[in-house]
């Protein structure tokens, strides 16, 4: 079976002043549909950069990225934005909710880019919030929610447009142990029950245990021999 995500000889070089910094060095990676991958590695190893490239937030310096048969490394900025809106859901460490909108309005945001009617958007957002166990808090603003609840709203926002791929950057990095466990359980549930392919960057070995398998990055290169946790 062809991989959902195919990364081939991927390199990323940043310019810092006149200095060139190679963050990723000829990375090859395959992720199958339905996988739950944890990317681990020390700070500066290129985990977030790789995640951003797979999620279409950044463009590689060299190499190719194919997601579900589509070369996204060649897409223009506007085409990439359109692709992200229907194919990828993002979850960040600091939730990144819009503070002036309610939980439901935050979840509805990706649906504003679709042709759904207002009532359909509202219904879909309600379903997503129910899935993450926050239907009762739909009218609350982020400031009225706990960290764990905010992260669940962020997950609802990530899945509301039913993307194939969920990319999560340190999703439990700002949470207490219990809330972190709840979020990771939710991600695993989305992976197992709803067949979402999840790629998660984490520093935390305990968090990585929730994934199907782990890959380690070091100095911009994938470490060979990293394996399954399940």
């Amino acid at each position: 079976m062809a991989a959902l995500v195919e990364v081939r000889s991927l390199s990323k070089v940043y310019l810092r002043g006149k200095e060139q910094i190679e963050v990723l060095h000829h990375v090859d990676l395959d992720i199958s549909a339905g996988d739950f991958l944890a990317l681990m590695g020390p700070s500066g190893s290129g985990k977030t950069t790789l995640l951003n490239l797979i999620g279409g937030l950044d463009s590689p310096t060299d190499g190719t990225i194919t997601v579900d048969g589509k070369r996204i490394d060649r897409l223009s900025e506007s085409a990439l934005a359109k692709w992200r809106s229907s194919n990828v859901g993002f979850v960040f460490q600091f939730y990144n909710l819009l503070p002036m909108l309610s939980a439901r309005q935050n979840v509805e945001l990706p649906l504003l880019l679709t042709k759904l009617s207002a009532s359909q958007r509202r219904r879909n957002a309600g379903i997503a919030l129910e899935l993450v166990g926050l239907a009762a808090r739909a009218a609350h603003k982020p400031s009225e929610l706990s960290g764990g609840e905010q992260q669940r709203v962020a997950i609802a926002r990530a899945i509301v447009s039913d993307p194939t791929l969920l990319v999560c950057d340190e999703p439990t990095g700002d949470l207490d142990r219990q809330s972190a466990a709840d979020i990771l359980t939710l991600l695993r549930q989305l992976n197992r029950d709803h067949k979402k392919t999840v790629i998660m960057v984490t520093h935390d070995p305990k968090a990585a245990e929730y994934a199907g398998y782990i890959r380690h990055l070091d100095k911009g290169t994938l470490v060979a021999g990293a394996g399954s946790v399940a």
Partner: protein
Amino acid sequence: MKYLHLVWAALFRRKTRTVFTLLSVLAAFLLFGLLDSVRSAFAAAGQSVAGVDRLVTVSKISFIVSLPKSLYGRIQLVPGVRQLTYANWFGGIYQDPKNFFANEAIAGNFLDLYPEWQLPDDERKAFRNTRTGAIVGRSLADKYHWKLGDKIPLQATIFPQKGGSNTWTFDIVGIYRVTNPKLKAQEEALFFNWDYFDEARQFGTGTVGWYILKVADPAQADRIAAAVDALSVNSDHETKTQTEQAFRVAFVSQFADIGLIVGAIMGAVFFTLVLLTGNTMAQAVRERISEIAILKTIGFSNHSVLGLVLAESVLLLLLGGAVGLAVAGVVVEAVRTAMGPAIPMAPVGGATWVRGAALMLGIGLVVGAVPASRGMRLRIVDALANR
């Protein structure tokens, strides 16, 4: 429309700052409404006299240039002229130059052309029979606590007496009222007998300041005005016949170029507004860099972000500007009611709203352009990493 709640929420993210900015926009457009009303009144004055039954004939050169009294008989013969009178600006000062009010010498039949001024018969008779008699409006009399029988000294600024004295003393023999509240400002004046003025003044005898004529058919006003002005074509005293409103406008224009003043004030106000709202918008977008990055992350295109920020700044201007213009409309009506035609002001109508809306849109786009372009060019990964 589906993005409106997003724009609205962004606008009121910092309520206090937005409210103060809205108040600034409101004040600017209130001022715009008031000044545009004055400008419109000046611009419209003198365009046509059709439909008006009272016209004023003045020197074509300037309001302050006198006309020969010999014109009286010739104007009277113009077909359609029903009544004719004349008057002269006196410009006297009562006690202190700050006590400004209109004071004029008027012909004996002057009051016949102003039936809306109510003067009791006995006072009207006394005015006619008292050489130094004067009538004053009720508002003016109340202001200076004048009553019938009082002697009022005015210091001449233009017309000294033949003996060289600048002091003209008048006996108040009548107090007139104007019942129409919109014309109440006409009570702020003093009128005295022409004969006394013409005989006692040191110069100018045999000339008048302006003629006032009443036409039989207002629909013929344009034709009559043209016929009156034709009487003195190519003479040294060519005339211009216009409405009373245009006459007042010309009077005020003697003192200043209203269009230039209005333009200069509005230019300064809007320049300040651009700086103020521009700063607010720049600050608002700077604070929301990570939120804009999230919008782009979930699929909002660069142009969507550009549109959202521009919509926010235009909405800011539209909200404040619309309220400001609405308040200007109320204030203008109140001033028109209180002051009547003394202060030329046109109602805040459709044309002012169109000009105002264009300004709101233009300023909104200008002040939103820089922050919107910054939001559009934002690199997601840099913004999310707080770089």
